[in-house]
């Protein structure tokens, strides 16, 4: 079956010469959740905006459900729902009217039963007659999702859906996304949280400086990215790693004043408990413990190096 979304060599150069997209190509299958992972300014929002018609591409093309986003914009956009990054709502309008407007813009007749269903899914039904100004930030974000779902899109773009959202609401959002996936909706979400991509995406596309660095299944990518380090500060410096600890992936740091243990967060056993027991058994006194994981930027650097190798 043809991918529901096909992007071919999409470029966007803004006035002033800034190249936000440098020939992005990507195929997305129907029903999958794909996370566009990248730091601020990577081109995630520009990519989504271009696909949704908010920004005009400089060159290249893309199709949604086989319809060209520029030539057959009506058919393509009919399939799309968009949840923007910024909360944009008219404060004096009620939730119900805001959702009704979006449904109407997509050429769908007024259907209060459907709108009630969507609002119910997002725990907003009791807020239908409430003005959006009276809602909390999390609720406003859910209203944006309700608007995007008001016309039954087959492809949903979520631009940083959990930016500035607390932990419980983030989990709630993930549940909404999972439910949409069960309904067969294809979801493209942008995030700069690795944890978020890992939790909900089937595939992760890493994007930086307007280029897609790699696209990989989440499980496989996490195996590559899941390394973490345990830093053991020692009371007395070591000249070398004791032979009893040879079985561990250890390195000496800070002129022998700390041991650095690299382990895989994805594996069933990290080996930390065993290492600490061995350290005690060999009579090494500890002063402090800390852990460290590569930042997204460091991971990107690593990925670029790997790709170049």
């Amino acid at each position, binding site marked *: 079956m043809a991918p529901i979304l096909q992007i071919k060599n999409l470029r966007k150069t803004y006035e002033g010469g800034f190249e936000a997209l440098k020939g992005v190509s990507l195929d997305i299958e129907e029903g999958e959740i794909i996370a566009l992972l990248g730091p601020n300014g990577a081109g995630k929002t520009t990519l989504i905006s271009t696909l949704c018609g908010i920004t005009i591409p400089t060159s290249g093309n893309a199709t949604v459900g086989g319809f060209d986003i520029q030539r057959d914009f009506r058919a393509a956009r009919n399939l799309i729902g968009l949840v923007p990054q910024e909360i944009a709502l008219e404060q004096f309008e009620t939730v119900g009217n805001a959702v009704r407007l979006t449904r109407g*813009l997509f050429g769908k007749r007024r259907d209060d039963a459907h709108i009630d269903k969507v609002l119910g899914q997002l725990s907003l039904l009791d807020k239908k007659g409430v003005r959006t100004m009276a809602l909390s930030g999390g609720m406003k974000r859910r209203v944006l999702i309700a608007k995007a779902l008001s016309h039954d899109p087959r492809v949903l773009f979520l631009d940083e859906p959990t930016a500035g959202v607390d932990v419980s609401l983030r989990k709630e959002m993930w549940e909404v996304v999972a439910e949409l996936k069960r309904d067969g909706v294809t979801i493209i979400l942008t995030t700069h949280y690795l944890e978020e991509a890992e939790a909900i995406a089937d595939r992760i596309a890493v994007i930086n400086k307007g280029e897609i660095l790699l696209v990989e299944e989440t499980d496989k990518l996490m195996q590559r990215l899941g390394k973490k380090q345990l830093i053991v500060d020692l009371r007395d410096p070591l000249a070398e790693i004791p032979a009893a600890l040879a079985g561990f992936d250890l390195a000496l740091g800070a002129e022998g004043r700390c041991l650095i243990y690299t382990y895989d967060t994805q594996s069933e056993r990290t080996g930390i408990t065993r290492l600490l027991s061995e350290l005690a058994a060999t009579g090494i006194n500890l002063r402090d413990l800390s852990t460290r994981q590569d930042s997204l930027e460091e991971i990107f650097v690593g990925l670029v190096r790997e790709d170049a190798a």
Partner: protein
Amino acid sequence: MNVIAIWSIYRYEMARFFRTILQSFISPVISTSLYFVVFGTAIGSRIQEVEGVSYGAFIVPGLIMLSVMMQSISNASFAIYFPKFIGTIYEILSAPVNFLEVVVGYVGAAATKSLFIGLVILGTASLFVDLSIAHPLAMLAFLVLTCISFALMGFIIGIWAKNFEQLQLVPMLIVTPLVFLGGAFYSTSMLPPVWQTVTLFNPVVYLISGFRWAFFEQADVPVGLSLLAIAGFTALCLGVIWWIFRSGWRLRD
């Protein structure tokens, strides 16, 4: 044609109008009454008649035009600038609608609002002066066309504006002087010959003249020319908006 989208935009915009219906109604009533006090009573006591029509009645078409033009511009410019300002424009740009559908929705609502205000002023004016309309249908046609064409202009201003100051700039610096110098409160025939010629370069003269003809069968310029001017202005505005949507100027980047 996405008729449902047009209707949705129109209804949404009109809902904002109905939320403040009292202000929308009272404001033109008060301002019209004030105009009659100032122009009708103060000046009218010195100028009894203009070309056989009492001065009080003579200024009614000009008064209506003045308000309708300003209201059309301000309604339409605000209607499109506000979504740009608060960010909700994204849903118009990402919806399966073309430029004409967006324009019909927004401009239609803006024109309806100013038409309502124009009729309120007409009603208020009829309380102050004896008013007869020689060609009611032509009067309505001129009124509707003016509402639409100036709402189109307001729509362009709303897209062009980068802040609220710019939103006020064109109506204040260009449209208001053109209306006041366009024979709203006098006949251009009352001017010296040189200024009569200069006035012909003011497009508003043609609109007010045509509108006044519908009331009193008196015109500063031929009625056909007035209709041509308003049609040309509408076509020009539509052309500019078509180009804006096509290029994405100040909208899609």
